[in-house]
């Protein structure tokens, strides 16, 4: 039987082993945009939080993820890549392209799409309500 994990590069392995920015912002944080995608019963679920600075850029990210190693690694890499971008730029960030650059196999495209959808859902809240309110739904710390 072929190694089922052979497609995972050293980068993917490293981010799976030690995911960056994992978790959630503590309750009470302001300027948090939250979005989610996927369903656990279908094998992956991602919740993303974007903290937006007063200048309108993403200062920090957090996420929670249930899924395969590729999903976890993509959340980690995406959270790094989003820092410094505007929410609009984050909404256009292609996790699918990132997955391709990492050499992930085609069957992992759905993982990338789920991460992308969660980021887009979070970033989309900025467009909907530029004046961010603490009332924006928050994830548990």
């Amino acid at each position, binding site marked *: 039987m072929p190694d089922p994990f052979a497609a995972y590069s050293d980068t993917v392995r490293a981010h*799976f082993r030690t995911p960056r920015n994992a978790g959630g912002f503590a309750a009470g944080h302001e300027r948090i945009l939250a979005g989610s995608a996927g369903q*656990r019963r279908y*094998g992956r679920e991602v919740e993303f939080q974007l903290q937006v600075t007063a200048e309108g850029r993403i200062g920090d990210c957090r996420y*929670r993820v*249930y899924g395969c*190693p590729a999903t976890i690694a993509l959340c980690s890499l995406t959270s790094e890549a989003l820092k410094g971008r505007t929410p609009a730029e984050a909404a256009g960030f292609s996790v699918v392209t990132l997955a391709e650059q990492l050499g992930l196999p085609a069957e992992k495209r759905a993982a990338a799409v789920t991460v992308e959808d969660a980021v887009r859902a979070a970033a989309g809240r900025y467009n909907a309500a530029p004046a961010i309110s603490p009332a924006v739904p928050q994830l548990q710390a």
Partner: protein
Amino acid sequence: MPEKIIYLDYAATTPVDPRVAQKMAGFLTCEGLFANPASAHTPGRKARGAVEQARMQVAALVNAEPGEIIFTSGATESDNLAIKGAAHFYRDKGRHVVTSRIEHKAVLDTCKQLERDGFEVTYIKPNADGLVEPQAVAQALRPDTVLVSIMHVNNEIGTANDIAAIGAIVHAQGAWFHVDAAQSAGKLPIDLKQMPVDLMSFSGHKVYGPKGIGALYVRSQPHINLDPLIHGGGHEHGLRSGTLATHQIVGMGEAYRIAREEMPKDVTHCSALRQQLWRALHVTVPEALLNGHPSQRVCGILNVGFPGIEGESLLFACHDLAVSSGSACTSTDKAPSFVLRALGRDDQLAGSSIRFSVGRFTTKEEVQTAARIVSEEYHRLQELAPAAG
């Protein structure tokens, strides 16, 4: 194997016992008994003697007559020979076969082939403990049932079926009874003079013998006939033609001799390790679920479901352990374990279940380390996950 990998996959295959390897080496080179056991000359007769001694050793472990043991290439071929051989030979008597949904693929795929050949097959659903209930077999039998094939021990969850009870029901109906004993030989007592079994499949490499060798028990009284799968030469009473692989056969014989002599010690050792592993996992991961019956089982297999985490990630996180999983990513057919699904486990739990199987050479330290790794990685992945909705 890399030093740091902990091998807990004895149900997949066992390392060859060094005593077996040493014995086999004497049947390969110019200095050894390499001759064809079918040859009439002196070296050939000596090789034949070694084959017949091995046949006696295999027969002794399961209390059969040596003449009832047919050497094959492994349990898969034995299953094929038993099921296709009996079904086709007795096809004029009936064309109905009974098996269970959690048989090894060697049985299930063979039954699928029989369906293509015009037979009807009933696949019995096991109970929630992973056992095939004798009453369910009784209900599946029909007047035209010619053969029933039920495994002794399930390879994924380790549960042991009540072969005596099932066999009695099958024989009362007048059908033949085949049992795949690849996972039970050397681990559970097998007495074929007492058990109502007509055909039983054995493997060499699950009992610290070499790969590529197995055996089929074919009852002599009452005699059951089989259509052979392989023709040419008439070896093994015409049931399995082909030059006998002396070194493989001798290796299997030695492995079965050791198994017979050391079974009490092996069983005690494996039972203790399995219990140690389950206790350690249960303490550190209280949510962990035991798959299969808690006591009606073989000593070395422990199948545990880990709720709330994704199976491929768990297996990848535990890459220092050589274990098997119900996860889709490790399966060639990309589907959750059909055995665990048949037990009523959902896809998530079937996917995040791990089969640990310990053996003669497993140590307490390895089990302790394995439990720690699984527990740590389980909690790490669980912390990463969103709260379950």
